[in-house]
C-alpha cells in the first residue's frame, strides 16, 4: 500500500530554484514531519502537492494515483489543512463543514451524517450552530482537521498547522494527528518546530529546496536533541 510518493520534483520561480530533485516515499499510516527552516521550500512543496502549482519536472503519487495525470482523483484522496485559515468566520460551524462536503460532492443526508460525526469527534456537537468567529484558535484548527477528513482521504497534508496556537493547543493537535496516523492515515506535517516530532516519526529535512536527510527522528538525532540536529544540518542558529 502506498501513501504518498514524490519523485524527482523540481520547481523554480523564474531564475530562483525553490525545489531541486525532491524525492521521498511515505508508506500508508506513517506520520512524517517535513522539517525545514523558513524559506526551505515547504510551502512550494505544499502548493505542488495540492495541485495549486504544477511542476515541470517530477511526479507526485497520492494513494497510488498520479496527481499530474489524474488531478481530481488524486485530490479526492487527499485532505489538506492550509497554513492560512480557510473557515468562514461568520458562518456556523456546521455550515462550514457542509460547504466543504459539497465541494467534495457530498450532499444531503450523507453530508449531515458526516458533519455530525466530525462534530462529535471534536466534542463540539453542541456548538454546531455557533459562528466560527466565536471559537478559539485551537478549536478552529481542530475543526479544519476534522473537516479535511470528511471525504475520508487516505493522505492528510498539514502546512504548519500549529502556527499561532498556544502550547496546550499545539500539544493537543500534534497528539491528535499522531493518533490519526496510527489509525492508518498517511500524514505529512510541515513544521519548523522540532518539539512536534516524536522519536518514531519519519523526518524529511528540507533545506534550500533539497532533501538533506530522511530517516526516523530517533536515528537522525542520535544522542542529541532533534532541535540541535536540525540547527546543525541547516546551518542555523537557535531561533
Amino acid at each position, binding site marked *: 500500500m502506498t501513501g504518498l510518493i514524490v519523485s524527482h520534483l523540481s520547481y523554480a520561480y523564474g531564475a530562483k530554484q525553490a525545489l531541486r530533485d525532491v524525492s521521498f516515499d511515505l508508506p500508508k499510516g506513517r506520520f512524517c514531519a517535513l522539517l525545514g527552516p523558513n524559506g526551505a521550500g515547504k510551502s512550494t512543496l505544499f502548493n505542488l502537492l495540492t495541485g495549486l502549482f504544477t511542476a515541470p519536472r517530477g511526479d507526485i503519487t497520492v494513494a497510488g494515483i498520479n496527481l499530474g495525470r489524474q488531478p481530481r482523483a488524486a485530490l479526492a484522496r487527499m485532505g489538506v489543512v492550509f497554513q492560512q485559515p*480557510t473557515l468562514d468566520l461568520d458562518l456556523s460551524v456546521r455550515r462550514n463543514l457542509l460547504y466543504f462536503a459539497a465541494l467534495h*460532492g457530498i450532499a444531503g443526508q450523507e453530508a449531515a451524517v458526516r458533519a455530525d460525526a466530525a462534530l462529535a469527534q471534536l466534542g463540539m456537537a453542541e456548538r454546531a450552530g455557533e459562528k466560527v468567529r466565536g471559537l478559539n484558535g485551537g478549536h478552529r484548527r481542530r475543526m479544519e482537521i476534522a473537516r479535511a477528513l470528511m471525504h475520508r482521504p487516505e493522505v492528510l497534508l498539514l502546512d504548519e498547522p500549529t502556527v499561532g496556537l498556544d502550547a496546550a493547543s499545539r500539544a493537543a493537535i500534534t497528539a491528535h494527528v499522531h493518533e490519526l496516523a496510527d489509525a492508518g492515515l498517511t500524514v505529512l506535517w510541515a513544521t519548523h518546530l522540532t518539539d512536534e516530532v516524536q522519536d518514531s516519526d519519519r523526518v524529511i529535512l528540507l533545506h534550500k529546496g533539497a532533501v538533506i536527510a530522511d530517516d526516523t527522528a530517533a536515528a537522525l538525532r542520535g544522542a542529541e536533541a532533534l532541535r540541535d540536529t536540525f540547527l546543525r544540518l541547516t546551518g542555523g542558529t537557535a531561533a
Partner: protein
Amino acid sequence: MRWAIALAAILHREALRFVGQRGRFVAALVRPLVWLFVFAAGFRAALGLSITPPYQTYITYEVYIVPGLCGMILLFNGMQSSLSLVYDREMGSMRLLLTAPLPRWWLLFSKLLAGTLVSILQCAAFLAIAALWGIRAPMLGYVMVIPALLLSGMMLGALGLMLSSVIKQLENFAGVMNFVIFPMFFLSSALYPLWKMAEASPRLRDLCMLNPFTHAVELIRFALYGQVNGMAALWVTLALGLFSVAALWGYDPARGVQNRKA
C-alpha cells in the same frame, strides 16, 4: 451531479455571506445612490438630452444615468470580489476551493456566478429605490434587465478574475480604482451619451466604443426599456469569452498568479 452540488454550495455560501454582511450591502448601495441623488441632480440643468433610442421621449439626466449606475455596481463588485479572492483574507478559502476535486474552470465559473447574483440583488435594490424616487422603467424592462445584468456582471467579474491572475502590480484596490474602474467608468456611455462625447472629441468617443463597459451599459439600458441591443450583447459576450480565457490561463497551475511566492 458532483458539479451541481459544488455549484449549489458555492452559491449558497455567497448568499449566506451576503445576508450576513448587511453593512457591505448598504455601503455598495450608497455609492450609486449618491451619484443618482447628488451628481445627477446637479447635472440635470447642465446637460440636455435629446431623444435617442431606447428612449421615446425627452428624459431627465437621472433617467439617463440609472443604467450606467447599475453597470457601476457590477463593475465595483466584479473587481472587489475577484481581487479579494486573491489578496485579502479570502486567500485561504480560494485555496480550499481550488483543491476541490473538480475542474478548475468549473470552480471559477461557480464563484463568478455567485458574485454576479449578489450584484444583481444589489442592482434590484438600487432600481427599487430609483423607482420610489420616480425613475421607473416598463415592467417588461425589469424582467429583461436580469439577463443583461447577468451577462454584464459575468463579463466584469471575469475581467476582475483575469486582472487578479495576470497583473501583479494591482495588489490593492486603490490601484484598481485608478487604472481600471475610473477609466472604464468615465470612458463609457454610463454618464453621457456617446454623441455628446463625440462633440468633445471623436477620438475619445472611439475609445469609449472599444470599452466593453460601454456595451455592458448599453445592453442594460436597452434591456431596461424592453429592447435587445444585439450589437452590445455581442460585444459583451465576446469580452466575456476573452476575459474568461485569459483568467483561466492566469489560473493555470503551471503559471500565473499562484506561481510566485506569496
